[in-house]
C-alpha cells in the first residue's frame, strides 16, 4: 500500500498552516491496533494473575474474555501486519538513527537541541515498531498453542509448555514497550497524541522533533503563511 507515499506535504487549516503527519488510513489502523491491544492487555492480565482477575468483569466476565481474547489478538496481528505494509520503509534503522541513539541521553533529559536531526520516526519509535512486529508474530504462534492446547499431542507436550513461556515472556516485553509508548505519546511529547487523532502537527513541532522529515515534506514549499 502506498498510503504513506501520497501525503500531501502541507495542508492548510483554520488554525494556521500545519503538516499532515498521519493519513486517515494510518490513524484508523493505529487505533484498530491500539484498541485491540488494550483489550488483549486487560483480558490477558486477568488470566495472568488472580489479583487482576477482576479485570475480566470489565469486559463481560471470564468466559467471555477467554472467548474473545484470541480473536481480538488476531485483529491486532492483522493491524500490525497492515502497519508493516504502511510503515516498514519509514521504520528502517539508518545511520542517522544510530548517531541519535548514542545521544539518547539528551532526548531523555529534554535537551533535544543537542540531538542530530532525524527523519519521520526516531530510533525509539522504530524500536517500538519492531518490538511489536516481532512480538505479535511470537504471540500469535504461541497463542495458537494455548488456544488449541488439546490439539498438541501428549507426546509433544513440551510444545504446550513452550507456548506458555513464549506467550508470557513476549506479552511482558510488549507491555514494557506499551507503557513507554503511551507515556511518550500522551504526556511527554506534547502534540503527539493530537497528531495520531487528527493527523496534523505544527511546522515548529515537525522541525523540533523530525527535522529531516520536515525538510523532506516541505521541499519547495516556503514556510510562509
Amino acid at each position: 500500500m502506498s498510503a504513506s507515499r501520497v501525503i500531501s506535504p502541507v495542508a492548510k487549516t483554520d488554525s494556521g498552516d500545519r503538516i499532515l503527519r498521519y493519513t486517515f488510513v494510518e490513524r484508523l489502523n493505529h487505533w484498530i491496533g491500539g484498541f485491540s491491544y488494550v483489550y488483549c492487555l486487560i483480558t490477558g492480565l486477568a488470566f495472568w494473575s488472580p489479583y487482576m482477575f477482576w479485570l475480566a468483569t470489565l469486559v463481560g466476565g471470564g468466559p467471555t474474555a477467554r472467548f474473545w481474547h484470541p480473536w481480538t489478538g488476531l485483529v491486532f496481528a492483522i493491524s500490525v501486519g497492515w502497519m508493516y505494509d504502511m510503515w516498514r520503509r519509514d521504520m528502517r534503522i539508518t545511520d542517522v538513527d544510530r548517531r541519535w541513539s548514542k545521544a539518547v541521553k539528551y532526548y531523555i533529559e529534554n535537551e533535544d537541541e543537542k540531538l542530530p536531526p532525524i527523519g519521520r520516526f526516531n530510533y525509539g519509535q522504530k524500536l517500538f515498531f519492531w518490538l511489536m512486529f516481532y512480538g505479535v508474530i511470537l504471540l500469535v504462534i504461541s497463542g495458537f498453542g494455548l488456544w488449541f492446547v488439546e490439539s498438541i499431542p501428549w507426546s509433544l507436550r513440551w510444545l504446550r509448555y513452550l507456548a506458555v513461556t513464549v506467550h508470557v515472556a513476549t506479552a511482558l516485553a510488549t507491555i514494557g514497550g506499551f507503557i513507554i509508548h503511551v507515556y511518550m505519546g500522551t504526556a511527554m511529547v506534547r502534540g503527539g497524541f493530537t497528531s495520531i487523532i487528527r493527523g496534523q502537527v505544527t511546522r515548529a513541532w515537525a522541525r523540533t522533533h523530525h527535522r529531516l522529515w520536515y525538510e523532506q515534506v516541505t521541499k519547495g514549499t516556503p514556510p510562509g503563511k
Partner: protein
Amino acid sequence: MSQAILQISKISGHPGPVPGAGVERAEQVCKLVDTTTCIGCKACEVACLEWNGYSFTDTVFDNSYQTMPETTWNYWNLIKFNEHENGDGSVSLLMRKDQCMHCAEPGCLAACPADGAIVQYTNGIVDFQQEHCIGCGYCVSGCPFNIPKFNQETKKMFKCTLCSDRVSQGLEPACIKSCPTGCLHFGTKDDMRDLAETRAHQLRENYGFEKAGIYDPPGVGGTGVIYVLHDVTNPEAYGGLPKDPHIPWVVRFWKGPAKWIGNLAMLFGIAGVTLHYLKFGPKEVKNDDDRKGEQQ
C-alpha cells in the same frame, strides 16, 4: 459439585487465603486399583457414564481392547490395555483403570487462573466447578496425567469428580460399586495404603512378582488413586503411567516467581515513566526561527 457438604482446602486462581482453610480436617479418601485382579470388563466405565448422566458414545478402534485412545470430556474412566512383552518372551496383558489421580498437589489447580474453577476438598478430592470455569485450558498444561478435557460446545473443562457427590453422602464412587472382581477398593488413604501393601507383599512372596509394589507418586504429593502393579519399576507399561509425575516446572515458574518478576517489572515501568515526568516534564517545541504561535 456438592460444596455445601465438603469443606474446601485449596482454591484455584484465588487472591489471598482460602476462607475457612484449616478449620476442619477430614480423612483423605482414596481409590485403590489392583491391576493384578482387573479383568478388563469395563463395568466401571459404564457405571461412571450412568452415574454422571452421560450416554455411551461411539468407540474408537485403536488395535486394542480399549474403548477409545484416551479419556474425553464426557468419558472420565477408561481401562487402558497394553500387550506387554516380558523379557522371557512371554506376553502380559496389562489393564489399568485410567482417570483423574486426585493429586495432593494438583497441577491443574496450580495452573488455573479462574477464581474457584478448581477446588480441593479437605478429603483430598480435586473437583472442577464448571460455573466458574472460563475454558482457557491452562489445566491441560498443568496436569501431569493428561486428564482435563475440553467440551467444545459449553467451553468448559471436565474430568472425574471421584464422585464427590456420592462421597459427600457416605457412598463409594460409582466405579468402585460396579467392580465385579474386587480389584477396586475405596476408603481412607491410610487403609488403602495398608491394603495395597498387603497385596503387594502377597504378590512378591506367593506369586513370584518380585517387583510388585504400590504406585503413589511422591512428585505430586501422593495421589487419591493408588495402584498395585506387578512391576512397579515400569509404570509406563500400564498405558503410559508416568514414572515420576510432577507439576511441569514451566507451570511452577509461570505461577510462582514469574508472577512476581512480571508484576514488579510492570510496576517499575509505570513508576519509571512517572518519575521521568516529574523530573524532566514534557518536551517543549522550540520556536527556533521567526515563526510564532505554533506551540501545542
